[in-house]
């Protein structure tokens, strides 16, 4: 299979779908003439023209709302949020309109929109430019929220997203745009609502999504090599719908779980994971589910502080040790 970067896999999905379906249009800041601040949309203006690749002023609420209006009439807009940090400005449009229009119109209107862009931190962008907003958007019925981490998944899920009749919040692992992975040449899609077992194991289940999955894979490797502990790694991929089954099945096998998130602890995805596991695998649990989260502080700029603010291999290993009762 050919290898593509995460960025190129994403662009391939957009390109193919735009070629296939005229109703797909792109909107966002500097996605056209400039080529996209993260180069995701590079070349698309030339290929598809300015009616389909729409550069916008700096007005996240306005252009997201306009895209929702387009979707209400049957277009399939893909909106680039230059980064998700700017999406608070569009949150009223996303939550009050996109998520609820089908419902409060009694089913008369659908909103087939995708809103995409890089999510999460790790490159010293400090407090206003570092957020992981999966729980924020994942809270609201009417939205679908996904967070793919491999080039394979990002392409397959983008196709699913564009074809979905409902609004999709597409959270990209911005720090990983340059990472490579296998991507088939044939068309394929990856469904929503199905977690991925990224590594099999029998001793402990490690659960995350987005770029932290790579951290878990490194930890699992270390645990295997250094301690002969076989960790199972689950990549949630889809935050809403949320795949309880895969998590529960794994924990029924391993009896132990660590949920990891880059985001803040309170009301985060890991809270839900822990709540679900104790609900549905209570009698299988040999230890309380452990959570490892970002530090409870706005993201700092200094490299050393930023590093300390995000989950580390050591923190996850410590947590795994605790659920395995191998402390100290």
């Amino acid at each position: 299979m050919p290898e593509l970067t995460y960025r190129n896999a994403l662009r391939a999905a957009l390109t193919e779908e735009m070629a296939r379906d005229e109703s797909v249009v792109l909107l966002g800041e500097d996605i056209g003439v400039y080529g996209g601040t993260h180069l995701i949309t590079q070349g698309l203006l030339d290929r598809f023209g300015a009616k389909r690749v729409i550069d916008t002023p700096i007005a996240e609420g306005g252009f997201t709302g306009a895209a929702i209006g387009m979707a209400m009439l049957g277009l399939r807009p893909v909106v680039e949020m230059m980064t998700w940090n700017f999406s608070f400005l569009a949150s009223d449009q996303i939550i009050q309109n996109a998520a609820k229009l089908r419902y409060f119109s009694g089913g008369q209107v659908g909103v087939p929109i995708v809103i995409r862009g890089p999510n999460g931190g790790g490159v010293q962008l400090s407090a206003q430019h570092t957020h992981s907003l999966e729980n924020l958007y994942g809270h609201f019925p009417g939205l679908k929220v996904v967070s793919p981490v491999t080039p394979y998944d990002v392409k397959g899920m983008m196709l699913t997203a564009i074809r979905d009749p409902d609004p999709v919040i597409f959270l990209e692992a911005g720090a990983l745009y340059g990472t490579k992975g296998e991507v088939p040449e044939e068309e394929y899609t990856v469904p929503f609502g199905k977690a991925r077992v990224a590594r099999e194991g029998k001793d402990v289940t490690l659960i995350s999504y987005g770029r932290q999955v790579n951290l878990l894979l490194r930890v699992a490797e270390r645990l295997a090599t250094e301690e002969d502990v076989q960790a199972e790694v689950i990549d949630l991929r889809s935050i809403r719908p949320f795949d309880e089954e895969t998590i529960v099945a794994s924990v029924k096998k391993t009896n132990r779980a660590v949920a990891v998130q880059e985001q803040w602890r309170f009301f985060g995805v890991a809270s839900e994971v822990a709540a679900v596991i104790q609900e549905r695998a209570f009698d299988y649990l040999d230890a309380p589910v452990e959570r490892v989260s970002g530090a409870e502080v706005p993201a700092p700029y200094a490299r050393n502080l930023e590093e300390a603010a995000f989950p580390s291999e050591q923190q996850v290993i410590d947590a795994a040790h605790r659920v395995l009762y191998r402390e100290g």
Partner: protein
Amino acid sequence: MAVSKEARDKTGGGKATGAASPNGQQPAAEQTPDLGGERLLELYRKMLLIRVFEEATQRAFRQGKIGGYLHVYIGQEAVATGFLDAYREGDKVITAYRDHAHALLLGSDPNAVMAELYGRGTGIVKGKGGSMHLFDVERGLMGGYGIVGGHIPLGVGMAYALRYEGTEGIVQLYLGDGAIHNGAYHEAANLAGLWGKSGMNPTLFIIENNQYGMGTSVERATAMTDLGAKFDSYGIEHEKVDGMDVAAVIACARRATARVRETGRPYAVEALTYRTAPHGAADIKESYRTREEINQWRQRDPLGLVEQRLLDSGAADEGRLGALRDEVKARVDEAVRFADESPEPPLDELHTDVYADVAAQQETEPTHA
């Protein structure tokens, strides 16, 4: 019916072309088109239906049959009546929560509208949205919305889509005087102006300037009170119209819609009007305005003006008007009866219409609930 014989008489004849509104703002003088007796009567019937319908909703609200928020259109009837007179199939209409009139004028079934307000399964959106969220997509009504200003970007996006699809349609986008201070307006109007440069934005902005956003007068909301002129910032041309005079509105609407349709560029009209009813049916306190002010505006009640013109021109006599009133009242009574007798939505409707795919919905339902 709220328009008394006395009030009608006080309007002093049918002179309604471009009259100044009581607050002194001066709409552009407008040639009143010669509407003809039957046509005027038909417009009157439409406005009357709105008025009588709204009065019925107020009663039902007081009786506890309508819940939530209820915002009526009393006093503003000429605005939507005039503009929607220029509606053509394929156009889209979007407005805020003061949306009953728009639905009725587009031909939505009054029964279904009333049933919606009653929260019945036979409601126009199945009882799920209520007063603020009327939709009739088949007739071009793309919704009522509850977040002030939040619908404006949607309308601008729709206008883009209409041209993208190569249609001749335009969007009639209604907004209040209060909404114009919101960032959503600014961002959307700017997009409309920008996209209009290439003919990709046939949006007709219609400011229903009823002088207040809830209890806040225009003067207390902005230092620059010429609301139409706020469109200058986006390269969008604009005019004012006397929103109490349906004939003036119709003339303006004809020109404005034709222009927007032809050019694919946005245009804005500020309709000077007045809400004689309280902001919402529950908002009985009116500390922010005087009885005198309300009465002064009532003298130019949009229904009263038309009645006077009908009588003066001989197009109708009191007998004909009385018969019309009875007919409209009967229609509204029927809607009330229909609503009252309709069943609540079935409980399983709670979970439909969240996603297109019901399975997707079920996956997110709690295990025990």
